[in-house]
């Protein structure tokens, strides 16, 4: 059996960013320790129940770094013991919450990848996004991580944020490239219901859709020129530095998510913990969502990758060849340069990535 990915959701943040709708709350020291205990317990239960091994571990949030280095180290060590995690171990960090020695502790526990939320290197933009760290702090963070031995670092940036221009975007990209990190994620801002941005979108001076599309293209061009491959819609990496845990999602592979709002895909079933920390601490079972992993879902996910759907892999997984019907539906998109069909695979182009919802739904639904 293939190793699964292990995801730990840390539902705490120092403050809520105005665009974010992920499940998180403020919390204090006691909560952090208490929550850590719950996660340890839950991991123990799941290991007994599933008896599976994991090769990746990913701390997402919220802001995992808020939990503190010791708690993160504790969970990491336990995960390694229970699930024999031996490959990629990532912790998402907010640069404004990093204390001295933080990375060293993580490194010593086995963490080997750090994800830092930069969002924008332009002060005004970053402030509007509710991000407190300044350019210098972020650089120091990267430096500290490297000094502690963690060189696999990914930076998050955002496209289409208030007041953003092509020039300001370029300066953000340059800033990221200059750090020399091997991986960059670029997310187009989406106004999520219930967020401050959603309610106040009129006042935000957001770039329009076409501008954001152009920004995405510009970003892709610059990053590719600098050796980063656009291997997934929102992800860019130097060869060999693709995010292994996240690839499991796009490859339609299995993962176990622990913590409120965390999603899982195990044994063909998709299930999740509700957005309710009390329910999680109470030990409530996760909620069954639906059966997963069918052809359509697989294609939907794989088309997010620049490698697209590989016909051999498809046949191996589903014991039948890739249906001609899909190709027929894809034909107009191929003709117009949104997708490419070669001998053994079909994949979207960058232009296709931008309208991937339409293309994917046309092909699979």
């Amino acid at each position, binding site marked *: 059996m293939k190793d699964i990915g292990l*995801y730990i*959701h840390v539902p705490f943040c120092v403050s809520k960013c105005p665009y974010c709708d*992920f499940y998180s709350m403020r919390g204090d020291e006691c909560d952090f320790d208490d929550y850590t205990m719950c996660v340890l317990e839950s991991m123990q239960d799941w290991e007994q129940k599933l008896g599976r091994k994991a090769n990746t571990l990913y701390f*997402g949030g919220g802001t995992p770094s808020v939990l503190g280095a010791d708690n993160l180290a504790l969970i990491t060590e336990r995960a390694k013991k229970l699930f024999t995690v031996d490959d990629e171990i990532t912790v998402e960090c907010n640069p404004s919450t990093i204390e001295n020695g933080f990375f060293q502790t993580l490194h010593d526990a086995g963490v080997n990848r750090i994800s830092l939320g930069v969002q924008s290197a332009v002060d005004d933009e970053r402030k509007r996004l509710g991000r407190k760290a300044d350019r210098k702090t972020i650089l120091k963070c990267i430096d500290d991580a490297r000094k502690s031995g963690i060189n696999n670092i990914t930076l998050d940036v955002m496209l289409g944020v208030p007041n953003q221009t092509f020039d300001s975007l370029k300066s953000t990209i340059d800033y990221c490239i200059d750090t020399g990190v091997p991986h960059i994620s670029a*997310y*187009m801002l*989406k106004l999520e219901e219930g967020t401050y941005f959603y309610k106040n979108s009129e006042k935000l001076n957001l770039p329009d*859709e*076409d501008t*954001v*599309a*152009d920004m*995405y293209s510009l970003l892709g061009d610059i990053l590719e020129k600098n050796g980063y491959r656009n291997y997934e*819609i*929102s992800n860019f990496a130097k060869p060999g530095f693709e995010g292994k845990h*996240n690839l499991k*999602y*796009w490859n339609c592979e299995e*993962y176990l*998510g622990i913590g409120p*709002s*965390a*999603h*899982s*895909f195990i044994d063909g079933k*998709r299930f*999740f913990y509700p957005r309710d920390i009390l329910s999680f601490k109470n030990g409530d079972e996760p909620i069954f*969502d*639906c059966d*997963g992993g069918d052809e359509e*879902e697989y294609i*939907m*996910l794989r088309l*997010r990758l620049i490698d697209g759907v590989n016909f051999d892999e498809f046949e191996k997984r589903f014991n039948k060849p890739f249906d001609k019907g899909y190709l027929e539906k894809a034909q*107009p*998109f191929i003709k*117009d340069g*949104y997708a490419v069909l070669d001998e053994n695979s079909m994949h979207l182009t960058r232009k296709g*990535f*931008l*309208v*991937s*919802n*339409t293309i*994917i*739904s*046309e092909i*699979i*639904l």
Partner: protein
Amino acid sequence: MAVKKENIRNFSIIAHIDHGKSTLADRLLELTQSVAIRDMTEQLLDDMDLERERGITIKAHAVKLNYKALDGNDYELNLIDTPGHVDFNYEVSRSLAACEGALLVVDASQGIEAQTLANTYLALDHDLEIVPVINKIDLPSADAERVAKEVEDVIGLDCENAPRVSAKTGINVEQVLEKIVSDIPAPLDSDDTKPLRALVFDSVYDNYKGVIVYVRVVDGKIKSGDTMRMMATGAEFTVVDVGYMRATSMESAKELTAGEVGYITASIKTVGDARVGDTVTTAEYPASEPLPGYRKVNPMVFCGVYPADGADYENLREALEKLQLNDAALSYEPETSGALGFGFRCGFLGLLHLEIIQERLEREYDLDLVTTIPSVIYKIHLTDGTVLEIDNPTKYPDPAFIDFSEEPIADAHIFAPNEYVGAIMDLCQERRGVFKDMTYVTPERVDIAYDLPLNEIIYDFFDVLKSRTKGYASFDYEIKGYTRSNLVKLDVLLNGDTIDALSFIIHSEKAYGRARKIAEKLKDNIPRQMFEIPVQIAIGGKVIARETIRAMRKDVLAKCYGGDITRKKKLLEKQKEGKKRMRHFGTVEVPQEAFMSVLKLDE
């Protein structure tokens, strides 16, 4: 047991919309114990849901009330309800023709409105005794004395003894009953011995009995077993049953005699066989002359009605068939549109009638519909002398063969507080109106008369009027004839293909402005697609307005939401579901809202 003619009173209630006609009718039913209190729901006479929601009476109904007056005598009061909207003017006039008197209900805070006057004139045309009733005196803004004076000044009715009532709370409503008895004449002219002449003032289709014909017997008698004859059509039926309408049931009777109001059933299959306004006589003892005033009502407004899902075509046909059983003014015939597939060209009395039918089709028959831009009947005179009557833009001839065209004109009256005169005149001017007259109904209220082309009224005139006058203006119109007009046909092209369902006929002066607006509306309401779509509006082959719907650039989910794959899947499914509901023109997908947006340009 039939009462003496001296003790019969046949009356209608006339009022402007929302002045409380239906509520007053309910109170009268209650007071005469025609209906048990526990059976009272609000506004009993309006029995279609739609009527209750819109606060208008769509079809006439009638009910017999028994009342013991203060003079100690028992009276039979026949209340004939009338539709309250301009589209149903003819039906109103037939209901009034069945009466000797009418209650004129006027809102004590709003005073006289357009339909108050229009209905009063109709009632006067039929020599009815008019009994004014000032209603809604319970409202804080009520000023019964001012309104009473208004009625005296404007209509010339003595209001000194007019009941001041609140139909809502019931105050003084008993005075209304006494007024009916004392002021409205009994049908003494009606003669039982003459040949039967009964006026059809309404007819409704009943699944079990067939058509129920509501009549006022003017002369003669009718009983079951008689052979009834419709004088306009000559159709004959054997009478199955006659009787009276009660508030919640029908009451069979031995016979209906002159002066009475009641129903006849005779296994008649469609209301088209017993049209409103026709005269019923008997084959055994026929009358020589029908009652005056019958005319076949003709639809004035036409539009294409298509099922959103082509598979519903048969259901739509059946639904229209059923509605027509009960609505002789509704016409329909099959038509085909390149854009919308199979549907029907439907004819309506007016825009309200259209909206009501559309809503009933959607609500009662659960149909999803696409309707095209409404059209009036244009007369197109060709160079060879023939005259085409066109209610469908797709039948518009090649302009090269047109000598000249004519369009229908309405005699329109707008009542409003005088501060809105400017706004109203601006609107009428925009709609190509020709100013006729302006009279002060009271020092603060005016009656503005315009000749307005019907095709300018049927889009959204009333909605715009209401919004520009904060709802204070009231409006009434009547078709007065045809006038020569410079018309053109506008075509809409998407991606180079003409969308026939969006074509319409318009005055040439307005063509450019309208074309620009339509192009903009379509651009705003057709979602961007994977390729660029030119939107062109053309007269003949000449494009007069153009917009471009640029190709969609961005439609992507950046994040995977921590492995929440289901969320993404659902989003795509929802998107796909939305597309299914769109119309496909070649490769272009057009949502229903785009059609609707072209209908309502001024919003």
